[in-house]
């Protein structure tokens, strides 16, 4: 699915990713944990092509294609999806128009005809149920006036609409109460298939109790410094990161 080799990236003059190596196979869920400022969000931003970040080295292969040369929209068409840590409000653009544009551009990329209005409304209705997103929210402008929980649910709704191959959930649990987190996690689990993979970026193991990872990585100072099974998340929750820093000879 995804192979990242020695990826380096910076924002401004500040180097944030300093040689990331990561392989994700079809159907796998990987958790990426790490202290604040270790580069977790930067990694997700670089993978989806956020122009604020500059890639200074390395390569990323996504389903056999070199990802870094692609425009952000083409990466999306190839099946890459990011659930934003801070979903953006877009006043004046309705959720319906936004999703229709997204769906139809993807279909165009795949050489298909635009989706008919009836089918589209049916699809919206069906996918809304997955995250219990209110019809009212679907009629409003994108994320405008949504609560924190509604914004995150809306991200998973969009994921359901676009059926990505690889989803990156960037701190999707932040700012969510217990019930909202359950709805989001259940939504993500319903969307899992043997062919689709997922990267979950989080600080806490709460979300990982609900979305079970196959592999847990610890990112620190722009590198993956530890990789293990799901038990690593529990251990970090109990012991913090200092013991990992100690293993690296830093403390």
């Amino acid at each position, binding site marked *: 699915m995804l192979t990242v080799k020695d990826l380096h990236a910076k924002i401004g003059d500040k180097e944030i990713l300093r040689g990331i190596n990561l392989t994700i196979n079809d159907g796998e869920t990987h958790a990426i944990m790490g202290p604040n400022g270790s580069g977790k969000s930067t990694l997700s931003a670089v993978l989806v092509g956020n122009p604020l970040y500059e890639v200074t080295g390395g390569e990323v292969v996504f389903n056999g294609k070199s990802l870094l040369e692609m425009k952000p929209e083409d990466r999306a068409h190839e099946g890459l999806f990011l659930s934003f840590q801070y979903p953006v409000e877009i006043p*004046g*653009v309705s959720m319906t128009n936004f999703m229709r544009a*997204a769906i139809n551009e993807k279909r165009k990329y795949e050489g298909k005809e635009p989706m008919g209005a009836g089918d589209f409304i049916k699809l919206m209705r069906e996918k809304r149920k997955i995250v219990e997103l209110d019809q009212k929210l679907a009629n409003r402008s994108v994320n405008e006036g949504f609560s924190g929980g509604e914004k995150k649910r809306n991200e998973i709704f969009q994921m359901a609409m676009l059926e990505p191959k690889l989803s990156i959930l960037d701190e999707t649990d932040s700012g969510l109460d217990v019930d909202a987190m359950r709805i989001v996690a259940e939504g993500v689990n319903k969307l899992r298939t043997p062919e689709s993979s997922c990267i979950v970026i989080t600080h806490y193991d709460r979300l990982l109790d609900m979305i079970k990872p196959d592999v847990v990585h610890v990112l620190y100072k722009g590198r993956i410094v530890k990789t293990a099974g799901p038990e690593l998340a529990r251990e970090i929750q109990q012991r913090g990161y200092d013991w990992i820093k100690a293993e690296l000879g830093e403390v």
Partner: protein
Amino acid sequence: MQSEQQYIDLYNNSRRMLFGHSADAMNAVRDRAFDDFSRLGFPTRKVERYKYTDMEALFAPDYGLNINRLDIPVNPYDAFRCDVPNLSTSLYFIVNDAFYSKTQPKSHLPEGVVVGSLNDFAGKHPELIAGYYARIARTDEDAVTALNTMLAQDGLVVYVPKNVVVDRAVQVINILRSDVDLMVNRRVLIIVEDGAEIKLLFCDHAADDRRFLATQVIEAYVGNNAGLDLYCLEETHAKNVRVSNLYIEQQAGSRVNHNIITLHNGVTRNRTDLVMAGEGAECRLNGCVIADKRQHVDNNTLIDHRVPHCTSNQLYKYVLDGEAKAAFAGRVLVRPGAQKTISEMRNQNICATRDAHIYTQPMLEIYADDVKCAHGSTVGQLNDAALFYMRQRGISLKEAKLLLEFAFINEVIDSIQLAPLRDRLHLLVEKRFRGELSKCEGCKLCR
């Protein structure tokens, strides 16, 4: 530059012809307008309200005029057939400055309502015209108004008698049509008497690929508790110069909705002066501008709160691309004693390129101490975070920009009360942003 000299000479040489073809009521103010024009000359850019548009340069070229009232051989009802079924309006045409009256559709107008040639009406009802014509459009204050008044020979009159409500919107299509470069001086008089209501839609088009210079003076008198909706849509071409001065006077309890929409143009200067003359009057002035290439649009407004308890609202939104240059200058004047005035003015702009320029100048001048007034202006670019968010969902950069620009302008379009026009404009604005309205091909509303 001595741009005014050719107009002074023109008047001196053709005064007899101008008088001969026009009604007495229009001629009565002509010499005075000429004196005012000769004295004022075109405003330089040092004149506050003309800072952003070089009037002398616009009026310097030598255009032809149709002073001898030669017939323009065109039947606009054939040339501009309306295929927008929902926009069921009473449809009229003005070719250059002449009201087209040879064939007319079945009238849906209530009894007593007049939509027709100003010159004819002035000839038949001089007593009605006398109290209104060239009263609020003062010739001693604005050289273009003076010039228009001294040269105008025809145009449109809209007369709605007391307590008559015109349900069906009236659409007037102004067509510029000529085989040579042409100057047109169109004059419009709108009288909505006490308790009367009308919705007007003016669409300006240039049908020929010629240089046009069109001046227009509109006077609108809105009586006690009367209502006027006035929508002005410009869709001309790059060689078109439009200088339009709109004067509105509102009596007590009256309501005015005015929308001015520049979809495509060359050089456009719109002046709007609105006087609150009676208590409890309300107005909403909205405008939107979409300009690119080297287009120039200058909207200049003045709302004069003379009496207490009036409300005014202004919202002007611009999207500028290419090397477009545009201006918005709005002034709200609250006179001594005009207590309980509520006034809000907003101007918001997007400059999509480095070479696009907007000059914005919202002004409040308040001489009363119990009022609620606000003004604000923003200039910005499209939100990068929103653009990236959309691209991550697979929406191309071009389409994402379009959706954002469209959303920005929609706030103005959505304020339009005339539902079919609103729907049609959504479509036109989208086409415009997609570059499918690159030149005027006639009335997009109508065919």
